[in-house]
């Protein structure tokens, strides 16, 4: 009796999982499965393909497990008992070969898709791309638009159907920049520049988050990515240029100090070459003119001589 109920329960669990599949595909709150951007769309399709391929192996395993557990239970006198049977070469070959084939297919897909969806690969969409430089700080995101010469904290806006080139670095412990509805994440690390290319399908507002722990306040390190039409974007850039704040070096040093749950801030202009300066201060000692008590670079120097 107990054994019957066990099989029923396990079977129900299995069915639940299948049902979940339906729920997941439909629910719009499930960002990864409801992409709003080109990259995320391709990544979602990959998820579906990989799931189906794996199920080709997993489903037989489940069926066989329940079947054998049921049929060959001890008090089933009808089942044949063959205690010395322990080997069949044909079967062995089958269950080494079948997963091998599935993995081979998946491996080919992996090779192609990894190259196609390489985050540092630019997106060709006909429209001129926009560059946004991302600096992960403790515990907020600084965004610099080098071509427009504006900067923002915890908010970005860009036109839809336009490729965005993100260049990422950090002035903080490693972090990870992620807008799930638009595509996969990319790490932002001090002393290095990484690249991510995304593109949104249509106007909308998307949640962005920090996916790598970087200290006490990292859970508040959220940002908003808004896409709009080109005209709206230009208007927005104009409005940012009219704000009172300027992101010069002293202002940057203040910003880089640890703070949590920062509100959105707009800067009408940014220090020239700020992004590169932030990277370089970790690679070579700060030269007198650039540093001006540059935050961590200056601190680093003091840290090193402390001991």
């Amino acid at each position, binding site marked *: 009796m107990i054994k019957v109920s066990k099989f029923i329960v396990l079977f129900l*669990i299995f069915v639940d999982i299948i049902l979940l599949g339906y729920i997941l595909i439909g629910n719009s709150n499930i960002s990864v499965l409801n992409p709003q951007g080109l990259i995320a769309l*391709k990544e979602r399709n990959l998820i579906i393909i990989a799931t189906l391929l794996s199920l080709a192996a997993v489903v037989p395993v489940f069926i066989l497990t329940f079947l054998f557990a049921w049929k060959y239970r001890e008090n089933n006198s009808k089942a044949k008992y063959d205690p010395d049977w322990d080997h069949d070469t044909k079967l062995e070959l089958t269950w*080494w070969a079948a997963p091998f084939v599935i993995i081979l297919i998946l491996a080919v897909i992996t090779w192609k898709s990894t*190259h196609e*969806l390489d*985050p540092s690969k630019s997106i060709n969409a006909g429209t001129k791309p926009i560059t946004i430089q991302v600096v992960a700080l403790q515990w907020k995101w600084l965004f610099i638009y080098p071509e427009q010469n504006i900067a923002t904290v915890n908010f970005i806006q860009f036109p839809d159907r336009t490729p965005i080139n993100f260049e990422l670095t950090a002035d903080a412990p490693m972090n990870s920049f992620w807008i799930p509805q638009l595509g996969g*994440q990319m*790490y932002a690390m001090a002393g290095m520049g990484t690249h991510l290319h995304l593109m949104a399908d249509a106007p909308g507002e998307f949640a962005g988050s920090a996916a*790598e722990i970087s200290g006490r306040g990292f859970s508040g390190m959220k940002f908003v990515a808004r896409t709009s039409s080109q005209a709206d974007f230009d208007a927005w850039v104009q409005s940012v240029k009219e704000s009172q704040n300027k992101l010069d070096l002293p202002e940057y040093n203040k910003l880089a100090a640890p703070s949590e749950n920062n509100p959105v801030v707009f800067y009408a202009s940014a220090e020239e070459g700020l992004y590169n300066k932030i990277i370089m201060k970790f690679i070579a000692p700060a030269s007198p003119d650039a540093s001006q008590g540059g935050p961590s670079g200056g601190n680093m120097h003091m840290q090193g001589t402390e001991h």
Partner: protein
Amino acid sequence: MMAFIFGKLTFAALPHQWYTLGATFSIAVGGLGIAVILTYFKRWKWLWKEWLTSTDPKKIGVMYIVVSSVMFFRGGIDAGMIWLQQALSAGGSHGFLTGSHFQQIFTAHGDIMVFFVTMGLLFGLINYVVPLQIGARDLAFPFLNTLGFWLYVAGAALINLFFVLGGDFAATGWLAQAPLSELQYSPGVGVDYWIWSLQVSGLGTLLGGINFLVTILKMRAPGMTLMKMPLFVWTSLCSMVLVISVFPILTVTMGLLFLDRFAGFHFFTTGFGGNAMLYTNLIWMWGHPEVYILILPAFGVYSEVVATFSQKRLAGYVSMVCATIAITLLALLVWLHHFFTMGAGADVNAFFGMMTMVIAIPTGAQVFNWLSTMYKGRIRFFTPMRWFLGFISTFTLGGMAGVMMAVPPIDFQVHNSLFLVAHFHTMVIGGALFGIFAGLTYWFPKVMGFRLNERLGRYAFWCWIVGFFTSFVPLYILGFMGATRRLDHYDVSTGWQPLFMVSAAGLVIIACGVSLQIVQVVVSIKQRKQNLDTTGDPWNGRTLEWSTVSPPPFYNFAIIPKVASRDAFWEMKQNKKSKQEKMQYEDIYMPKNTAMGIYVAGFVFLVGFALVWHIIWLAVAGLLGATICVIIRTFDEETEYVLPAAEVAKIEAGRNTNG
């Protein structure tokens, strides 16, 4: 002057927060309680002579399991606090934990569960079972065995010490990624506690790895070639190969981090040329093989359990051995899949992704071999077999998630999300922990001499499996909803809270399962007289451990068996061979007890403690003490004693008349 004597230690390090006070209180009460019981029953000398200074791997194995079980409760309480915080902390509410405290809890949870619970339980099982299964009396190096155990205990003491002195643990995640773990971003002693508790216990693990490897390769009974060993021995061997291959990397990485923090070196700092990605590579070169170290012995347990409870030979022995070796080698070639999102470039990412998926092939072959062991068997559904079926149900799904994440572009969308968290918990709980439970319930009669209550075991299993799915399926969904891991707070608008609450309910069910397991042990002890294992072979087993009495005599085998085939004991039973062909006993040399392991580990504990607090004189003293103890030990030429043949005969005869 004070700084010289006490280093960085000040009165501020004494417990003054609610959780440090609570933990210190529990430790004190627990310790006092044990001391009172021991004094009341006058068992101090017994404890010292019979257990603490023992070199018997059976005793050491039991001690590993006891200490690991205690650490399991701490890790479990940590898990409960994580669940509760995440279920409550949405929108206006911020739960009951501060961000930094929450981060310390999940860091401790991960380290305790991996290093002190899973590794400890597995080392316990391997210590007890492997010598019996290969027909040996002991491990190759009995002193290293006790030293390794006590180093493990010293590490466990260090990871709990911060409650009493220091108040802060690392808040960096279980692997203390640089540069977050550097002094600049983690200025307290937390990361130093992390480093030294793991260095000390890691040293114990490495010694154990060398010990088990040499034992399996050099001390098998005559006739037991490698291809006649039980699968549990094979998987333990391969797991230990991984241990000796990669634990030195962990030692180096943590050592370099400590040099950065302690002496101003610049390996992983954010300036002066430090390279944090180097830390990531090194730590995962250790970290990925580590999870295979955890899973391989569990696979070995499943092989034993499936064969025994299907009353049939394990199918495809050669194939299983090849699969195990393949997994061992592949484990060393996939570490980059832990950081596809670091921008390594498509060629590198694709290579590691493909290598990662390849592991599914030998793993799948193993699953199919287990299933064909069940085919045309006569399956008895005792608790160990249930755990195996629970493993199949969970591990295959978790493995599916893993194969998915092995595709780098997919990983870009799920890395560091709760999808990842659900995946690895499925593997560790569904794979390793269920395997440990199967092993513990399978070998319990051998260790204790009586059987476990089956009904309670059944109920515990069901609670675990239902609780597991209730806890972790929501996490898979949350991952797809964009929920990242390690968040101490999130917005209500994300819609995540209901799923977190379902997950928390799952933990309650698991807690019921754990309670039932405790009750099971208590009840079984009370009912032991009715459930005595009189034959030594309660399951009609196939391997050599079942040929001894339960529990086995301290020398395991009065006469070392001669082995002619796989499933050596089964063959003996079929051929109706008597367990001793000739009653010709010989003198047996057994290792003496020794307290040196405790002393050396005690000094090493002091070194770790001193380095955390920068108390240089104490570190030097501890190092000297440990070295001198080791040197004294090497001068000791009389580490064995002889059990004369007549004495052996007497013990065996006494058992035969009683049994």
